[in-house]
């Protein structure tokens, strides 16, 4: 093992203090270029099918799947949906979505902590998109990594449940910065908690001044009608 840096290479070639005799070449390539290229391909493909696409991101347990179940159950009569589910393991979420009668496909990322544009590009091959207005992509529950990976969506939607603490937007600013919409979920629990909704909204706007915020509860149904109206509006815009 190298005593300078602890690297594992047995017959290791780099000598830390000696100048190396090599040729320098400029590259200037974005490290996310490949993902961004594929994401643009997806975006083009979605546009060709007139699809409105949302990428739902949050920490685990914020209620993404329940929001989807509720939304699909109430809107599937008027809008065509397809759902891509991202999780490290199991098809539990896709099974829950499929139970609503909406086509769902599970992507298991294995060790991966986020969905990328390549997985999504292949994921949508499982759907007949001729009857689809909205593609919902439920990302892996993680408030860090999915922020960096464009999937080709129209908007990222951050879900923040009121049991998590109102300062999440400040703790994970990259995610809320990348999101155009925030759903504050489980607001029926507010009487039992010390969660300051106004402060939470202020924090989110500090990180992303133009972010659109809905306060919802899938249990009481509060706020869902505004969320649905926004979805209807966006689909109508796509079709226009």
């Amino acid at each position, binding site marked *: 093992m190298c005593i300078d840096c602890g690297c594992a290479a047995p017959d290791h*070639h780099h000598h830390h203090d000696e100048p190396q005799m090599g*040729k320098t070449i400029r590259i200037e390539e974005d490290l996310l270029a490949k993902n961004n290229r594929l994401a643009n391909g997806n975006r083009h493909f979605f546009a060709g099918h007139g699809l409105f696409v949302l990428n739902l991101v949050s920490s685990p347990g914020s209620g993404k799947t329940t929001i989807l179940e509720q939304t699909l159950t109430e809107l599937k009569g008027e809008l065509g949906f397809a759902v891509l589910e991202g999780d490290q393991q199991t098809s539990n979420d896709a099974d829950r979505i499929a139970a609503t009668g909406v086509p769902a496909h599970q992507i298991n990322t294995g060790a991966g902590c986020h969905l990328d544009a390549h997985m999504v590009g292949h994921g949508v091959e499982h759907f007949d998109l001729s009857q689809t207005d909205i593609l919902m992509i439920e990302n892996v529950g993680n408030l860090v990594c999915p922020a960096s990976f464009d999937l080709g969506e129209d908007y990222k939607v951050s879900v923040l449940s009121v049991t998590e603490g109102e300062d999440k937007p400040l703790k994970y*600013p990259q995610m809320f910065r990348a999101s155009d919409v925030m759903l504050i979920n489980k607001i029926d629990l507010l009487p039992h908690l010390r969660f300051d909704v106004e402060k939470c909204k202020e924090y989110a706007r500090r990180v992303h001044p133009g972010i659109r915020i809905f306060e919802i509860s899938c249990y009481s149904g509060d706020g869902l009608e505004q969320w649905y109206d926004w979805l209807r509006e966006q689909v109508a815009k796509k079709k226009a």
Partner: protein
Amino acid sequence: MHELGIAQSIVEIAEKNANQQGARRVLEVTIEVGALSGVMAESLEFCFEACCSDTLLEGCVLKIEPVPARARCRECYQEYTLINYFDSCPACNNPVSDMLSGEELRIKEMEID
């Protein structure tokens, strides 16, 4: 842990360029990492080493050039360095600014043999 994917992408890009140049190996790769790019340098170094084995980058040195996050206030046009996305303008306290740098995640150059 998306640093693993980023490290793989460094190796991929470097190998592609090294092959185009007919290089035998890659000695050093320099990358630019913005302060608000969401990537941890330590974690990236750790993953990079693992990704280099059995490639032209075996034993390659990863040089990370940090890029400070800079923003311009939308109110008074003062330019300032950000530690967090939500840092307000030090001159007028306006929270809304435009990012000038700090989100970079780019392979800049490499040394080949």
